[in-house]
């Protein structure tokens, strides 16, 4: 499956929006302007962007502690996200959630999640829900290599398999769970091979190549949408930064390894491809880049100018 020009440009914009958001958020965090902690998605952009290119507003996703990229790719507003990181009343969660709990139910973003693996069974439930309601929507669960060792992964995939649910499990294998290298936390070479345990297709894709992700995800989403059941899609990727902003990420990774992966920066690779193979004019890309830069600047201004929540707001929104 090959993206149309429109789709390709959408993917490019999506990746840029993620990168720019994360870079700005990191800068703000390091300047002491954001509370809590942040896990950035830098380096993994091709995965969220390539997968989400197949999703409509009605489709749903569940996300993780490293969730900004998923939300952005699913269409979240940067200003509301930024305001949330600033803990402002105008943020997605009115300042009650923070980076790890960004959600937009109207866009099918069922929430980032501070608990590794927890989104996986929730995604199965959302997929079941769609089927019971006769909707032809698909749910995507994003999660990491580390998450694939949780009980929730196993139970969630098994449930989705026996019920043949319209869900795509996207494992972003960025080679580390916090400081722990993959070979320390699991023996299996390809996480996708775990699909065997559920008689589900398991697919490995190069997560630095947005085109490859687009193609593989297209297949999996189509299968789900057509009633063909779930897929486990493993994207081999890498986070360019530390586990969280503030972690240099160097005590447990070799500089050479980081460098090697950075050589395959998904945004640079895709930009090159758009220019050289798809013959998109540089000016078109530059225009997108400028738009994204402006959007980020506006998001920060919006957040900065937004009011903080009132203390009593803490007491609201517990029960419907």
């Amino acid at each position, binding site marked *: 499956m090959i993206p149309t020009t429109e789709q390709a440009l959408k993917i490019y914009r999506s990746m840029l929006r993620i990168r720019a958001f994360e870079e700005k958020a990191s800068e703000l965090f390091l300047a002491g302007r954001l509370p809590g902690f942040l896990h950035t998605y830098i380096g993994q952009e091709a995965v969220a962007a390539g997968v989400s290119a197949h999703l409509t507003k009605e489709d*749903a996703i*569940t996300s993780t502690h490293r969730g900004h990229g998923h939300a952005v790719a699913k269409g979240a507003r940067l200003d509301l996200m930024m305001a949330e990181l600033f803990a402002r009343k105008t*943020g*997605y*969660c*009115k*300042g*009650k*959630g923070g980076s790890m*709990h960004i*959600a*937009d*139910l*109207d866009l099918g973003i*069922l*929430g980032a*999640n*501070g*608990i590794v693996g*927890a989104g*996986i*069974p*929730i*995604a*199965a*439930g*959302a*997929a*079941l*829900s*769609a089927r*019971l*309601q006769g909707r032809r929507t698909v*749910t995507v669960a994003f999660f990491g290599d580390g998450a694939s060792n949780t*009980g*929730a992964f*196993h*139970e*969630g995939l*098994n*449930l989705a398999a*026996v*019920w043949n649910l319209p869900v795509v499990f996207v494992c972003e294998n960025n080679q580390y769970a916090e400081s722990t290298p993959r070979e320390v936390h699991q023996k299996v070479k390809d996480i996708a091979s775990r699909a065997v345990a559920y008689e589900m297709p398991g697919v490995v894709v190069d997560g630095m190549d947005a085109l490859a992700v687009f193609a593989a995800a297209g297949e999996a989403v189509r299968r789900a949408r057509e009633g063909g059941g779930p897929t486990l899609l493993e994207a081999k990727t890498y986070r360019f930064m530390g586990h969280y902003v503030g972690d240099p990420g160097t005590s447990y990774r070799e500089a050479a390894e980081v460098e090697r992966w950075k050589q395959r920066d998904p945004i640079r690779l895709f930009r090159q491809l758009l220019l050289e193979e798809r013959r998109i004019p540089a000016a078109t890309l530059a225009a997108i880049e400028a738009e994204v830069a402006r959007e980020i600047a506006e998001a920060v201004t919006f957040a900065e100018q937004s009011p903080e929540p009132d203390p009593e707001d803490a007491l*609201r*929104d*517990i*029960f*419907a």
Partner: protein
Amino acid sequence: MRKITYREALREALREEMRRDGRVFLLGEDIAQFGGSYKVTQGLLDEFGPERVRNTPISEAAIVGAAVGAALTGMRPVAELMYVDFSGIAMDQIANQAAKNRYMFGGKARVPMVLRTQGGTGRSSGAQHAQSLEAWFIHIPGLKVVMPATPADAKGLLKSAIRDDNPVIFIEHKLLYPETGEVPEGEVLVPLGVADVKRSGQDVTVVAHSRMVLLALRVADRLAAEGISCEVVDPRTLDPLDTAAILRSVEKTSRLVIVQEAVAQCSFASEVAAVVAEEALDCLDAPIRRVTALDTPMPFAPKLEQFVIPSEERIVAAVRGVCA
């Protein structure tokens, strides 16, 4: 009025709500053709079919997680956890997901789900099948916790729980299933958060819930002969708690005994005692007394189990104690 069992009352509530609202569906282990371990869902598969009465693998975390996901996206799942003792496996989904999603997401999510389960002793089920863990759930903001004692409350509260837009932990009692009582046909809703004075009295307030209501009522009968008049208050919903009803009763009687099948430490009985010690200390003419399970895992031998859980004798002694 017709009498039916607690089990039938629960089943009737499920059936009525499933007929009324196509978004309501059931999932859990062995709930379909087998009708559930305690046969509450028997016959529902026949009426509603396998899409709405779903047998699951032994995957408690996924059962609750799937309910959360379905609830977030427009359905109203009723999940069954075969024993409340298994909630340790699903506790993350219960406490970190179901309970907190709405709040964490700034009020934009709804999680209208019911987690039905059963607990309690009396069948020599042993330490891992006879617990009373309501305190775990009450301790978590964002959950409602319901424990009916009678068939009528079972039906009326379960219907309300299913209609509630929030996660409700609904804990039945394994010994109550065959108990019968008068239950109105059709639409009877018992509101969540409202206590019921199961017997009114003057001398002492006995707060009891779930099966302990039955013991408390028997004790009240016995003590009436001695001239001690017990008011038995059944909170029914433990969270949100109808503290006003408890305080009203204590203001009248000036004495408080709290009875529960759970152990004492950090329990519902502790909570009731604390609320009264904060809000109505001046009314009390005697120390508060908690009658609870002794501080042990639940033993298997019937004799030991009976020794550990509250008996009528221990309740009688406590009531006499505060009335002395």
